């Protein structure tokens, strides 16, 4: 009886109810779009920064992140990598050695970064192989192979199949030099890296730098990326003494702050939208209660208990919210579809795209729809509308029937 009464009451002022419902629907749709967008951005950043760059854990000499010195290495690299990979908590791991060298083509020479990698493990962890735009990635047993950033290759005027000479200061003070065959060119999206970066097999670089069985860092990706504590505890036991193990949050506080900020700002946005929406509901219900003073007084006079009266008003409000929610969900679904499918160009005409921490992100951000987020938006809408209607409902229940009936 109460439900039918509430439903009918809602439609007595069609236009007002619809306008309020639409305002709420738009709030819902906007919230869905915003959260899809920020969730998508967070997911992209997490993927690029954490999954592909930092891994879940970083293993290195404690001084290396700040010193970047050639000598600050993780010793016994083969054994360490082997025992890390054998851990059940670890999904994949890759060791890297870094160096700086003169890299020369037939005519031109320039300074560049050398990264020694274990090709198939590197491909698993950082997907470096996917960034090859010409030729192929390094092979596990291809001694003397090198891949160059596209900018570096064009600077020293070499291409796939050409030979480059690499000269560097080795750890024993000698002048390390060797020839390598360019098997591929990569484009990472990070302009600086593409202009100076190169990769070769870890074993080749260890030989060139005279750093046998050493790496500068090991990137570990765990089976469970959400709870890093057991992973870290296991890895700490597997590495040599004097080696530091850091979670990605410790290794790059900026990244974790950025991700937290994104979540926080979308929460603030949601809070604002719902605050505004709740005032809309409050206003609508207040007006409707005020207008119906007489009618509500009659209801009370014929014996409707105050609690039932409260329920009536709240039900009206919740119905309106449900109506708004379904309209909002439809509009929001369309917006989300567009965001997921086509994305949103964040570059704002900046030809260099968007970058964060030296890593260039795809300027077109694609949305990501989390069912839980959508459900919580709808839940929040119903809750807010119920709460916002409590004040008018309470006022309705406190009406003095005699006075109310006299009101015109």
């Amino acid at each position: 009886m109460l439900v039918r009464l509430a439903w009918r009451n809602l439609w007595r002022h069609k236009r007002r109810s619809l306008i309020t419902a639409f305002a709420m629907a738009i709030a819902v749709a906007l919230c869905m779009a915003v959260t899809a967008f920020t969730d998508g951005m967070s997911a992209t950043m997490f993927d690029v920064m954490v999954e592909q760059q930092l891994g879940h854990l970083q293993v290195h000499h404690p001084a290396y992140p700040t010193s970047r010195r050639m000598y600050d290495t993780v010793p016994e690299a083969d054994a360490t990598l082997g025992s890390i990979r054998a851990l059940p908590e670890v999904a994949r791991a890759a060791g890297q050695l870094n160096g700086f060298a003169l890299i020369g083509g037939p005519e031109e020479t320039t300074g560049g970064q050398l990264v020694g990698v274990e090709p198939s493990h590197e491909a698993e962890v950082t997907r470096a192989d996917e960034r090859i735009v010409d030729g192929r990635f390094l092979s596990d047993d291809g001694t003397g192979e090198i891949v160059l950033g596209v900018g570096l290759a064009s600077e020293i005027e070499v291409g796939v199949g050409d030979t480059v000479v690499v000269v560097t200061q080795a750890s024993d003070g000698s002048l390390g030099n060797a020839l390598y065959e360019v098997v591929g060119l990569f484009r990472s999206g990070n302009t600086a890296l593409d202009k100076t970066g190169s990769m070769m097999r870890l074993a080749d670089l260890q030989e060139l730098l005279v750093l046998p069985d050493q790496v500068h860092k090991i990137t570990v990706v765990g089976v469970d990326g959400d709870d890093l504590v057991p992973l870290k505890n296991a890895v700490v036991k597997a590495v040599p003494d004097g080696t530091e193990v850091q979670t990605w949050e410790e290794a790059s506080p900026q990244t974790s702050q950025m991700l937290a900020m994104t979540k926080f700002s979308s929460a603030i946005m949601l809070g604002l939208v719902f605050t505004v929406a709740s005032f809309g509901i409050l206003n609508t219900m207040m007006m409707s209660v005020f207008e119906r003073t007489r009618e509500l007084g009659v209801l009370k006079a014929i014996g409707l208990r105050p609690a039932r009266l409260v329920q009536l008003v709240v039900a009206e409000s919740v119905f309106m919210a449900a109506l708004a929610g379904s309209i909002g969900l439809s509009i929001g679904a369309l917006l989300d579809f567009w965001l997921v499918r086509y994305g949103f160009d964040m570059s704002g005409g900046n030809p260099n795209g968007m970058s964060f921490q030296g890593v260039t992100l795809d300027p077109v951000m694609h949305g990501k729809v989390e069912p839980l987020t959508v459900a919580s938006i709808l839940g929040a809408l119903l809750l807010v509308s119920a709460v916002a209607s409590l004040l008018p409902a309470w006022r309705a229940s406190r009406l003095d029937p005699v006075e109310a009936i006299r009101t015109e």
Partner: protein
Amino acid sequence: MKRFRATTLGLFALLTLAGPAFAADPEPTIDELLDATDDVARGESSQATISMQVKTDRFERTMKMRALSKGTDNSLITILEPAKDAGTSTLKVGDNLWNYLPKVDRTMKIPAGMMGGSWMGSHFSNDDLVKQSRMSEDYTATLTQKPTPEAKEQPWIIELVPKPDAPVVWGKVVVTIAADRVPVSIEYFDEKGGLQRTMGFSDVKEIDGRKVPMLMTLTPGDKPGEYTKIAYEELQFDVDLPDKTFTLQALKR
């Protein structure tokens, strides 16, 4: 990266010992002393066998090298030992440097951006090999001490402050010259007065009637335990070197 621009420090420069003989003439002017110090390292041509010992916190290595020079513009240094690096050569023509790497049979020009880098693992930079300045021209000199009739063995000490537009990186340079006019040390300070580098000259021998320091020690100011020592094992002046010695073709030979 610290650059090392003063002339006498240049290794190539030192190889070319020649110039005005020190005579027992009347008291020299400051400029004459500075020029003599610069020219301890200048000459027409020379051929030398030197050993370079590099000691750092991480490694210690000694290389034997043959060095040829002609004028101030042309030099060629070839590593003789250790065997691993034998044949590795550095050619200097004017302001340009090339390295020849026998293992890969390649000649590589040192790019401008890499001139600040270490030369052959030593405390000398590539720039040190090519930069030339003259103390008497690029600095304002003040004589703070000189031999006196009472203290005949007291060395000359000259403080140098760079002239405003001089192409030098130091804030102050202190040159110590022995009473017999053989340089003893040159200390290089930054703008804040911190000691950046000390070049010491020792083991003075007489060659062709002139006193020449046969050992040169470079110590970085921030790492007192490290040094690069260059010692002459053999030294010949005014050798006849054809111009084609200092070409890329000869470098590859």
